[in-house]
């Protein structure tokens, strides 16, 4: 049985749908990349999957021993975190909270889990460093380690490479790929970077204003929607230079919100 099945899902805010009838199905170890233009509902879909927004209609069905609360989530960074006084260790272990229930303090099993996630991402030597003094790539690795504490089966990543330089971006993608292959963790990642999506993912979900695509990346590369996305004016450039335009797009979006 599939680990997660999304059926006719309409994600939206307060009853107003922003995308229509999304369908996809993932098995353990799949790597899904969600691509699409700004405003196509990618972020809302991720928030719906993370349980932050209620779906307007449709359903999300979990199987294969997986539940939605065991999904590790890497949200986009918030402004508050930029100057937050917290050590790497404090942040990573806060991912264990979901298994705490009403217990007030962390158990030694949870501490071990935090340490092993830090080791997986190579940040165990930064345990007592301050989060705000780290580079963008290091900060993302810390947040990824925290997501690993919350879940071992599936990770939901909302534009993990936003604001990173090319080297850090490549490193981030290879870490994610490694987690996917070695640990058999299912990945759902939102990205603007189509080239990277096609390079790393096994499946692609393309959200567009009038059409939608879900399938393996081999099918996607041959599909008309990929062609149209690449050859639109401006967007072609956007895809070829993902990093610079991501930074610019990120800035614009902050003002639009």
């Amino acid at each position, binding site marked *: 049985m599939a680990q997660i099945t999304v059926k006719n899902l309409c994600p939206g805010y*307060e009853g107003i749908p922003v995308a229509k009838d999304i369908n996809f199905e993932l098995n353990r170890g799949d790597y899904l990349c969600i691509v699409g233009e700004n405003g196509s509902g990618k972020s809302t879909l991720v928030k719906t999957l*993370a*349980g*932050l927004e209620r779906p307007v209609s449709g359903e999300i069905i979990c199987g294969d021993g997986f539940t939605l*609360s065991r*999904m*590790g*989530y890497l*949200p986009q960074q*918030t402004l*508050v*975190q930029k100057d*937050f*006084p*917290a*050590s790497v260790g*404090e*942040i990573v272990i*806060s*991912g264990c*909270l*979901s298994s*705490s229930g009403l217990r*007030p*303090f*962390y158990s030694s099993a949870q501490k071990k889990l935090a340490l092993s996630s830090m080791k997986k991402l190579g940040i165990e030597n930064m345990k*007592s460093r*301050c989060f*705000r*003094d780290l580079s963008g790539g290091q900060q993302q690795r810390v*947040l990824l380690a*925290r*997501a690993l504490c*919350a*879940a071992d089966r599936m990770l*939901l990543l909302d534009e993990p490479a936003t604001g990173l330089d090319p080297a850090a971006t490549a490193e981030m993608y290879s870490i994610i790929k490694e987690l996917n292959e070695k640990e058999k963790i299912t990945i759902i990642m939102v990205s603007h970077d189509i080239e990277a999506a096609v390079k790393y993912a096994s499946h692609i979900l393309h959200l567009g204003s009038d059409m939608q695509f879900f399938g393996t990346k081999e099918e996607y590369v041959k599909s008309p929607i990929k062609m149209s996305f690449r050859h639109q004016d401006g967007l072609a450039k956007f895809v070829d230079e993902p990093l610079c335009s991501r930074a610019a797009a990120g800035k614009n979006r902050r003002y639009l919100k």
Partner: protein
Amino acid sequence: MIAEYLSYPFVRYAFIAGILTALCSSLLGVTLVLKRYSFIGDGLSHVAFGAMAIAAVLSLKAELVVVLPVTVVSAVLLLRTGQNTRVKGDAALAMLSVGSMAAGYFLLNMFSASANVSGDVCSTLFGSTSILTLTSTDVWICVIMSALVIIAYVLFYNKIFAVTFDENFAKATGVNTSAYNLLIAVITAVIIVLAMNLVGALLTSALMIFPALSAMRVFHTFRQVVICSAVIAVVSSAAGVLISIILSSPVGATIVIGDLIVYGGFCLAGRRVKL
């Protein structure tokens, strides 16, 4: 000399109440500052002033019966407003705080039974000029409330950290964030009502934010910041009470000026040392 002062019960009361309220305020202050809620403390203290005025007009002996529920309810409403309501959070806060100030002053002027209205208003806003007024009941209420606040803070420390650092992530992993936000709102309201007796309505938010801001200048982990701001709060409030007895200066203002000086010192220290 200090021992001589401490032999008077009212001096002991002042020390106990002062240190405990400052300690509670500083603990929660770290969260409020980091969540960008500093102004909520300020707004709530204005609401508490309005409620105090109602209690005074009704000549209630136990003002707490009115002030505490009103402040708690306002705190819950303020946090509920969120981002998508018609009146935005900051506008709602401004409206509520000036509205209750005006209503409170109006009520006190028109209907107060007291002979010295401006004296009453002044001491509600800036705290009592002398600390002789604390009764043993006041102190007991203060001790019990502070104990509850500190126990709640310690028990929920990890959850408060998670909700402060990244509410979305906490919510996604199944932490009941709205319950913890509610808890934070209620504790904030309780602390403000407690602190009002000591430093007055206008200065309560100073007790919350200054220790946290000072600690953040020097320390870089959440735990260190919380501990340091608690220490700063205790030391400066003890010093403030002592100085106000010696100089017979208003307690609230003295403590807040002490906090301000500490903040200056920590700013300088923060530039030199990185811990």
